[in-house]
């Protein structure tokens, strides 16, 4: 069977997998532990969880390890695992005001209720390679800090609430159906509802969300938002107790939340801010802000700018989809390519461009382009 270019079976697949696995252990360095990935490469696991739509830090660390650091592949592993899990229950809606924030900045106002919390960030550091990290021993730079017990964290009122109370914020239309549609269980038909847009953006690939959000800022769109606030913190996950009916907190998830206002005045007689929202699992401020811009852009529902077209954004933003389809081009395309060859040869022959015509030209009726019958003989 030597004539099929790629003949293979299970053995070849297994060997390719084994070679891939060997790459991980090819040097003599210690095997990296799942704990180390979870603890030290939190941005990677956060990205995998956010794009995978599954909050499971330890599984995410395993996925990152298995994927050798490829975040989209790791997110894909999590999604494929998620789709085999039973759906036990739905959580009750949680108010982001409850967030136990470790970081919270409001670029819109200097003084906000609860105050600004700079938290852990590299935003203002100089981007110099720290060669001490290469073989340094870990030291806790905060060991000498004097910490006073400040008591329980304050409830942080959302900045947009202040604007909303003043009537400056455009309220989105009430959805026709108040129950959100889980887009992993029921596929989207266009045009999508806003809850579907937000779900898809929340699972969107970080680079794609960032790029499309940036496109609007760059000028391919009207949305240049002012961020009301960006927060990172923990939100409780609550379910209704099956027997008592009382709400029970079962765990917490780390999330990044972003809210923005956009000076686009929909109603001339009553100018208001448009509004955008972003929320992702884990710490990923870039993606949350990108999502915010895209949510605001999509609500404008424009036709001219890519970021304002919900179909365009949702069709391109999913990492698992784009990853799979882009990489499928590596599969054999013998059949379709033969078909394409047939068409281009036929057109070249008709135009007299083909040197070695596969079809005798003199057998074809001498006709104009349109008048002839079948060109095949």
């Amino acid at each position: 069977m030597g004539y099929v270019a790629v003949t293979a079976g299970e053995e070849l697949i297994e060997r390719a997998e084994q070679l891939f696995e060997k790459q991980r252990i090819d040097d003599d360095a210690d095997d990296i532990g799942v704990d180390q990935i979870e603890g030290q490469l939190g941005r990677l696991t956060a990205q995998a969880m956010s794009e995978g739509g599954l909050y499971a830090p330890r599984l995410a660390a395993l996925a990152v390890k298995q994927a050798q650091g490829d975040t989209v592949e790791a997110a894909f592993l999590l999604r494929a695992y998620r789709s085999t899990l039973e759906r036990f229950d739905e959580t009750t809606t949680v108010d982001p005001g409850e967030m136990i924030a470790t970081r919270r900045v409001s670029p819109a106002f200097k003084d906000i209720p609860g105050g600004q919390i700079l938290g852990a960030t590299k935003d203002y550091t100089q981007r110099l390679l720290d060669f001490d990290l290469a073989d340094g021993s870990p030291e806790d730079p905060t060991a000498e800090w004097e910490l006073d017990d400040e008591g329980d964290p304050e409830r942080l009122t959302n900045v947009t609430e202040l604007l909303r109370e003043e009537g400056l914020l455009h309220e989105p239309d009430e959805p026709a159906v108040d129950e959100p549609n889980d887009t992993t269980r029921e596929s989207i038909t266009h045009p999508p509802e806003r809850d579907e847009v937000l779900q898809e953006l929340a699972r969107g690939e970080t680079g794609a969300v960032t790029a499309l959000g940036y496109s609007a800022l760059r000028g391919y769109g009207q949305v240049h938002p002012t961020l009301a606030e960006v927060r990172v913190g923990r939100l409780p996950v609550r379910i209704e107790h099956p027997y008592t009916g009382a709400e029970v907190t079962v765990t917490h998830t780390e999330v990044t939340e972003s809210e923005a206002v956009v000076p686009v005045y929909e109603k001339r007689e009553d100018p208001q801010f448009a509004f955008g929202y972003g929320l992702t699992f884990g710490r990923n401020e870039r993606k949350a802000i990108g999502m915010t811009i895209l949510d605001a852009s999509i609500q404008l529902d424009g036709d001219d700018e890519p970021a304002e077209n919900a179909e365009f954004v949702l069709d391109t933003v999913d990492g698992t989809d784009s990853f799979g389809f882009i990489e499928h081009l590596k599969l054999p395309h013998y059949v379709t390519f033969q078909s394409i060859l047939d068409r281009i040869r036929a057109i070249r022959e008709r135009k007299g461009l083909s040197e070695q015509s596969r079809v005798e030209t003199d057998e074809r009726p001498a006709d104009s382009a349109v008048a002839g019958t079948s060109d095949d003989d």
Partner: protein
Amino acid sequence: MNDLPTQRSRERVTMTEHTTTDDVLPDEGTPVATDSVDAALESLDSDGLEGYNYAYLDEHTKREVRRSVLKAVAIPGHQVPYASRPMPLARGWGTGGIQASLSILGPEDTFKVIDQGADESINAANIRRLAENTADVPTTTDTTEADLIQSRHRIPEEVLTDEQRLVLQVPITDALRTVDPSDAANRRRHAHKNYGKMWVHLYENVVEYGEIKISSRYPTMVAGRYLMDPSPIPRWDVPKLDHADHLTVLAAGREARLYAVPPHTEVEPLAFDDRQFTVERFPEQACHACGSTDTYLVEVSEEATEDGDNAFETRYACNDASFCAKRRKNPDLPKDHHLEEAVDWGPGTPDAPTDDAGTPVEQGGAGE
């Protein structure tokens, strides 16, 4: 007018619901111990496939896919949305096809997987082993032995019967995508049976190139109602769908849509009176291995000729590897050798016109 599914085809599909739908318990799926949290975590602690349900997907999901298939059969050529699950295969690599296959397969079925005509391609082998591992089905490479065939971009050369079902993997679900990327707009066009933009596209092809330049994914009317993307099967295979005895299910995973061509349904490629639908041409070529001149050939290699270092000759081979193997043993084997009466099965079969050399020339649209 419209070829709605016949009684026979409906029975056929109902028979595919052999997973006893009524007995499905709501909590089937990954079994989880409920005695305590520790027990629950422990029960999820297994790896490998023993923790997965029969045929990988949980029964609810398979039932939902089957319902979508039934709806697709009831409205031939219409794209039915379904909740395409993330599969352990990459999207764009046959995830729609495998969801349809796993939902229809039962343990008594024999399964065949082909990718671009070959059973032995790596991706076909990968899909086949997923079905073997999770659905415990016997597999075959012989088209006539299979109850269910999943295929990427080919319809086998051997005639399919009313005992068989074909699942085609679909990358792009809508023929209109070529003329408008918007699904919202295209759904409106389908609702209104408004295919003017596609006709204009074909006309502009003829004006600009003298030919319709669409190679595969040839826009095709189903039952006189819906314009269908027949998946990137070559034009060669499109006539096989017309009034076929078998059920064809077309499934897209990434785009989460299913559609179907039920048995005995009219399938007609779009074409003009003065630019008829044509299949791929292989003038004066034959498979170098089996000598066939009535099968879909692909150029497989460039062989150096005796004329010098820079002279090459293109070799052709049958694309359908399984049928080619049979033809090598028996060069005169007809495509309907396993049937009692001759069946029209696209180019190279009884009713298909051929030129003097026996090369199929064209296949007019169906229902002429």
